[in-house]
């Protein structure tokens, strides 16, 4: 094992067990597949608010992902969540499949789709099916990504209407290690409730992306809630350790 590999693994493990991560906030997915790569991922997010019921809502996910070929990436994710005054609990096991529809950069826009089956672990929670449209555009040294998704609960205890979400990121590819940018994360609620803006969750804030080490990527974002339903602020962290075979 090389020095870099050992250091990357140690850093990844240390961060997994020391950083806490929020709901309505998700990683922002690229449509681009990386074949021949297995990656171990950690995603975490956490909310901060003066109101007790919106403070310290957190979610952590650990994931193993496999780039099957140029157009398909599949992964299994374990998800854990925490609500105010509750301890951490196992939330769900997710099977994600990300599809890249076009060769990267060949056309004006890179397009893909994410299809996720969410199997709830808690007895009274419903399973869910999530679909996301993934768009990416490189313009000079900027990379823009848009995710637009819906999540429909299925089976027992499921709600009648799908939840709608949206995310945007723009980054400036300054160098390999530091790529500053910003993100917007929105949860519009379900179609049936048809909430007004203030009753939906909307966040915006700065983000930074890059490599901590050659095979260890990071993404970190800090958000300000811009609607009444959102928490005052929230943070997101992603770490991805890549293994090639």
């Amino acid at each position: 094992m090389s020095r870099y590999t050992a250091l990357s693994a140690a850093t990844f493990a240390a961060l997994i067990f020391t950083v806490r991560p929020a709901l309505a906030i998700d990683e922002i997915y690229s449509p681009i597949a990386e074949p021949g790569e297995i990656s171990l991922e950690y995603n975490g997010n956490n909310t901060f608010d003066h109101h007790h019921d919106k403070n310290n809502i957190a979610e952590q996910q650990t994931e193993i992902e496999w780039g099957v070929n140029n157009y398909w990436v599949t992964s299994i994710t374990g998800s854990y969540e925490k609500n105010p005054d509750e301890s951490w609990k196992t939330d769900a096991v997710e099977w994600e499949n990300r599809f890249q529809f076009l060769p990267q950069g060949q056309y004006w826009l890179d397009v893909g789709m994410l299809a996720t089956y969410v199997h709830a672990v808690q007895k009274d929670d419903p399973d869910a099916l999530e679909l996301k449209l993934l768009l990416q555009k490189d313009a000079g040294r900027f990379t823009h990504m848009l995710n637009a998704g819906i999540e429909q609960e299925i089976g027992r205890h499921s709600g009648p209407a799908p939840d709608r979400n949206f995310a945007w990121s723009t980054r400036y590819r300054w160098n390999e290690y530091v790529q500053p940018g910003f993100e917007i994360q929105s949860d519009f609620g379900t179609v049936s409730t048809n909430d007004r803006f203030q009753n939906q969750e909307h966040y915006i804030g700065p983000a930074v992306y890059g490599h901590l080490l050659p095979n260890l990527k990071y993404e970190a974002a800090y958000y300000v809630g811009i609607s009444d339903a959102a928490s005052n602020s929230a943070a997101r962290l992603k770490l991805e350790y890549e293994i090639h075979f």
Partner: protein
Amino acid sequence: MKKLTALFAAILLATFAAAQAADAPAPSDYTITLKDHAWSPAELVVPAGQKVKVTVKNLGDKPAEFESAALNREKVVTPHGEITVFVGPLDAGHYSYVNDFDRATTGTIIAK
């Protein structure tokens, strides 16, 4: 379920739009080879303002990864295999890339 259908329709539309926006002239072809810990050519000159198609050939016995933060590209090349990378249109300038599995092996695409 109507929303699921709508999202599928949006995906198909976006794909179709991307393909249509596609293209104008076919991109010019270039080739970069990797052998004995060196890219050849070490500096590849391409026209600025045009999309180009770069074939990356790995002539070695070990896998390599063509990676460039400047170009936002990261792709594994199997031993004796090749990949195709579309880049640009690029502003005039230097765009470095590296074999991520052997990071001393660097190269540059120069757009001018």
